[in-house]
């Protein structure tokens, strides 16, 4: 019998043609191609619309679209209408960089937003710095983006991993115990988040019983969980995200480990809690933004607007990231009456977001020294079932301002070098 695998490999030309076709697909047209007028202001957005981060990325794009609609309804930027051009980074660094270059070089975008994936966000930041385009990182958390690899043109909306770790470390130590075991995703985000948590634990006097580095996209966590239980920690910290978080939590609960060890973590997202069966919605976490904030101005309007576009579902932190990223450009450009990237970047230093954009109780501003948004941490506990709303899956116990969770600028390793 002809062995298909052997004959396949032998036909190298055909294989190369196939690979070239797949490669060409990566740089094909953007997902959203609105009617383009020559004088429109263009915002480019690069996010992983396919792959494991498709859900958070889709939500960021939805938030940005809402912002663009609202900006246009209020007269646009400098009296010109705004259009959003969205590209799929496919959760791949090379593709993300290609798409960012395309948006800048071919589509001549004025601003860039993206990416959910830390590694892609960091790589795109290099491109935007080289091309002198103002860039807001919407959802990539790794420290270095506003740390040692910071750029004059790059600002970030979501928290750094250090901020996330700082927001819950003391609480977990005091409430759950001093021996921590980690399940960590094996890439930039996970590494910096683990380092931050481990450093905090050391300062508090606790010990790390182990750190299980799991490849992104791990489906079965049982081998890691067997090891974790054998180490007998007080707390099992899950630093994984997305579908990895769902798989891991689901298996922990099925194994009954939550009855033996406290299960918690740093960043938790509504997308993950919604994807879990009720019994697996457990633990203390921090949310980067939460939709239920009674009495906080403008939050209810934002929730209502997203519900209209989201099949009735409430916004997640990702919607707010996308919304705030796009709004930032409009706010600063209209304030400065300019589109000059350097001028706008300088104006964003210590720039405070207005109540209808910040959508939280504390002061929210882009910090001058590292360009990190000082946004609040919503700390609390996951809920099995929503009390009044099926999507109310998190009980917020405290909202800590960003400048309380962020390390001082001097500790971030960031030195902004402005272009001459």
């Amino acid at each position, binding site marked *: 019998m002809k*062995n298909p695998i052997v004959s396949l490999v032998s036909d190298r030309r055909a294989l190369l043609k196939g690979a070239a076709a797949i490669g060409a697909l990566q740089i094909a047209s953007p997902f959203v191609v609105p009617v383009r007028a020559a004088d429109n202001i263009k915002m480019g957005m690069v996010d992983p619309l396919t792959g494991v981060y498709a859900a958070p990325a889709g939500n960021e794009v939805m938030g940005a679209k809402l912002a663009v609609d609202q900006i246009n309804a209020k007269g646009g930027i400098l009296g010109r209408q705004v259009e959003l051009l969205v590209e799929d980074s496919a959760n791949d660094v090379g593709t993300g960089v290609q798409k960012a270059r395309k948006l800048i070089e071919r589509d001549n975008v004025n601003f860039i937003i993206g990416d959910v994936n830390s590694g892609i966000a960091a790589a795109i930041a290099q491109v935007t710095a080289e091309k002198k385009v103002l860039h807001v990182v919407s959802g990539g958390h790794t420290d270095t983006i506003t740390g040692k690899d910071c750029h004059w043109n790059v600002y970030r909306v979501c928290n750094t991993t250090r901020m996330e770790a700082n927001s819950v470390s003391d609480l977990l130590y005091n409430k759950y115990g001093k021996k921590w075991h980690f399940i960590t995703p094996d890439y930039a985000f996970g590494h910096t988040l683990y380092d931050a948590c481990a450093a905090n634990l050391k300062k508090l006097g606790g010990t790390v019983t182990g750190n299980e580095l799991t490849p992104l996209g791990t489906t079965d966590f049982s081998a890691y969980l067997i090891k974790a239980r054998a180490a007998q920690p007080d707390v099992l910290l899950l630093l994984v995200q997305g579908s990895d978080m769902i798989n891991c939590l689901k298996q922990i609960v099925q194994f009954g480990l939550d009855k033996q060890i406290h299960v918690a973590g740093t960043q938790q997202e509504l997308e993950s809690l919604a994807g879990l069966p009720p019994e697996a919605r457990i633990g203390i976490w921090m949310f980067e933004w939460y939709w239920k904030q009674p009495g906080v101005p403008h939050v209810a309007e934002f929730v209502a607007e997203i519900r209209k576009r989201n099949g009735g579902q409430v916004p997640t932190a990702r919607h707010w990231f996308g919304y705030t990223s796009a709004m930032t450009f409009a706010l600063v450009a209209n304030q400065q009456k300019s589109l000059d990237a350097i001028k706008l970047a300088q104006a964003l230093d210590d720039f405070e977001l207005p109540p209808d954009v910040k959508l939280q109780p504390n002061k929210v501003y882009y910090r001058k020294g590292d360009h990190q948004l000082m946004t609040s941490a919503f700390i609390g506990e996951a809920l099995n079932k929503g009390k009044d709303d099926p999507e109310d899956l998190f009980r917020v116990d405290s909202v800590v301002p960003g400048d309380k969770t962020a390390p001082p600028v001097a500790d971030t390793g960031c030195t902004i070098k402005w272009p001459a």
Partner: protein
Amino acid sequence: MTQLLLFNVTNGLIIGAFYVLMALGLSLILNLSNVINFAHGGFLVIGGYIAYTITPYVGFWGALLIAPPITALIGLAVERTLIRPLYGRDPLYSLLLTFGLAFIIEDGTRFIWGAQGKPVTVPAFLAKPISYDFFFITGYRLFMVATVVFAVALLFVLLRYTRLGMRIRAGTLDLETVSALGINVRILRSLNFAVGIFLAGLSGVLAAGQLGLEPTMGTGLLMPSFIAIIVGGVGSLTGTLLGGLLIGVASGLTAMYFPAASEAIMYVLMAVVLLVRPRGLLGEEGMMT
């Protein structure tokens, strides 16, 4: 340490059993039709989502019975319309087709059911560990293994003792002669494809109870299944069975000593087998022996 080792071997066998179910479906299609079905993970996802959709009406057990045949019917339609015209051509054509189909299915599920994961709850009495020490053996995992054993046994009986099975086995060895003997090879291939996709659908329902149900879930399970086939030997279903269990155990053991390599070990194992015995462990044994 011995206890940990024992835990991981047992756990690896359980995971391996799941790979086996996926890999057997893939192997059936590859052996008879020379189609490297990259969309197999996609059919798994379809099975899972169908189960999710009908569970509120028919319950988990109803979904387990109904979703795999529906998936098989969808597979049958795909085979008739898209894959059949490519039989007889270089396997690269069907590979590229199924590769594209995998993306279409992923985006299609995202379009229909949304990008956000969906919660699937298994019956409460299954979602518990059987004992405190063997916490990783839950009722559901045992049920999965039992289902896999049952499905594999049924498949072996089908292939060994039924007319259809004998024709599939004969076709795997020499399709031209089977055709010359007056057997309708088109129908044979369609039925064989449907059986393979049925197994993917069944894997999907089982996986939805164990993992998070989301459009990309098939991707992570597809590669181990391909590796199981290559390690076990292309053309041998018994080899596929062995390959699946082997990579499950290897992956579990590596996670214990060197977690970062738990995925890479499958590829290392495949490379070693290909170097030492390029036809795979049971590649020369023929089917079902």
